[in-house]
């Protein structure tokens, strides 16, 4: 293990971590701006030019608020809840290939923190772990509304993991590998998986809305029924962590969708661009393209939030179990038949 390798990974991890925090921070501003745009308002425009410093002001406000821990709550778990939420949100980015290999000063640098051969399953595991933060926090608050929010989060998460896993299985039939690096490399140019798995992509996207607790599936924090849902009792930065974790999750799941179905850092005409710009700037254009795709997905998340009303709880369960799971199984069967036939021809 050379020192250079350790330094390289350390820098990469730091950059990815900082980027996910910055993107999440500015997603809060983007959310309010987009909401304002869709509702024909101006949105936050006081702090800095065009409201640029609004996230910083919000963060500072969160830090300086009084921290309230309820008397009857379980102190340790009350603090562990938001910590877990933010931890699980941050570790998902480890296996995402942010770009092709680049050459800096004679070294080939891989723009991926680690390429484990079960990359997709790792993401899936992290997603399934994400519910603990909500559950533990909701239970430790010792509040009926929080508990209801936590229970809703758990049942929603488990229900939507199943169609998500099934849609990934159909994708694996096409890609023949679990490594995210290889999956991305296969989608060279315009061979994006979404052309081969349109239904799978649709299912995966709906499930990621549910897994990140975004509208129309934000029932765990449904304020019309549950006050504030699982974070009713939270204040100060602990509340901030919960809200922030949601935005990081949104960023990570946008990155996963872009990587799995929309080619990651691949784009049509990339060979020509790579030849023109050389082995350093060519792949960096790919990184920019990946971020463009991620921002497009984040915009889509927000667009849906301010367009579609929240589901009722029974509608959520019906959609998950009676529509998405049969569709996902049908998708696997169709994909299997299609692959068998195309192999024979």
């Amino acid at each position, binding site marked *: 293990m050379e020192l250079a390798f350790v330094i390289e990974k350390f820098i990469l991890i730091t950059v990815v971590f900082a980027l996910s925090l910055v993107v999440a921070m500015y997603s809060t501003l983007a959310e309010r701006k987009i909401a304002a745009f869709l509702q024909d308002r101006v949105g936050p425009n006081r702090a800095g030019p065009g409201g640029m410093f609004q996230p910083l002001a919000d963060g500072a406000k969160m830090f300086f608020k009084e921290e309230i821990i309820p008397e009857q709550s379980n102190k340790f*778990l009350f603090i562990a809840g938001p910590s877990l939420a933010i931890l699980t949100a941050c570790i998902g980015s480890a296996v995402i290939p942010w770009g092709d290999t680049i050459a800096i000063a004679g070294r080939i640098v891989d723009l991926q923190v680690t390429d*484990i*051969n*079960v990359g997709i*399953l*790792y993401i*899936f*595991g992290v*997603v*399934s*772990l994400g*519910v*603990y933060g909500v*559950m*533990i926090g909701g*239970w430790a608050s010792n509040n009926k509304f929080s*508990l209801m929010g*936590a*229970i809703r989060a*758990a*049942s929603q*998460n*488990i229900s939507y*993991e199943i169609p998500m896993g099934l849609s990934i299985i159909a994708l694996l039939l096409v890609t023949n590998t*679990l490594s995210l690096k290889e999956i991305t490399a296969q989608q060279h140019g315009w061979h994006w998986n979404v052309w081969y798995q349109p239904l799978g992509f649709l299912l995966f996207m709906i499930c990621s809305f549910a897994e990140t607790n975004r509208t129309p599936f934000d029932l765990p924090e449904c304020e019309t029924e549950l006050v504030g849902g699982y974070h009713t009792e939270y204040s100060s930065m602990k509340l901030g962590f919960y809200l922030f974790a949601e935005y990081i999750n949104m960023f990570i799941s946008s990155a996963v969708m872009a990587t799995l179905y929309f080619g990651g850092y691949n784009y049509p005409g990339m060979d020509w661009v790579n030849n023109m710009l050389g082995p350093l700037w060519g792949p960096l254009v790919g990184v920019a393209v990946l971020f463009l795709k991620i921002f497009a997905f984040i915009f889509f998340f927000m667009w849906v939030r301010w367009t579609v009303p929240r589901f009722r709880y029974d509608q959520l369960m019906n959609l998950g179990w009676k529509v998405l799971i049969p569709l996902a199984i049908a998708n696997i069967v169709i994909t299997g038949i299609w692959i068998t036939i195309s192999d024979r021809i």
Partner: protein
Amino acid sequence: MTLSLFYLVAFLSIFFSLLVIFSKNPVHSILYLIITFFTFTIHYILLNAQFLAIVNFIVYMGAILVLFLFVLMLLNLNKDSEPLKSNLLKIIGVIGGMCLLVTLVGSTKALHLSDPVILQAQNLGLVKNLGKVLFSEFLLPFEVSSILLLSAMVGAVLLAKREPNNA
């Protein structure tokens, strides 16, 4: 390096499993159980069985224990609501535990160290190799176990369905 790591993780596994038994609050028990399963995941990684590790992570930590926690949160068990066990039950428990202990001690006395199993293929735990083995050498047991799971699922649905008819 790997051996000392193994001892550390093994110690943590046993430590947290003991906490599962000894903690008074059932929700804390479940949380310790989650950590115990996490240490198992590390064990699998140390054995170079990445697929098994991540499946253990998803299925046990991500799904089954979430359901455990879910049920326990709904029950809201307290010290007050915990049913008092009669002395007879306690005596029966002690006798049962003793019998288990005697059996375990007896079986360890009868045990003699056989040849340790040597892993032939170092990369058996990787997805590709595991899949090949499951679908060629162990095809029948694999399919039979899937039928077992299916029957368990149908049984559970049947039990849940019976209630509205009676009510």
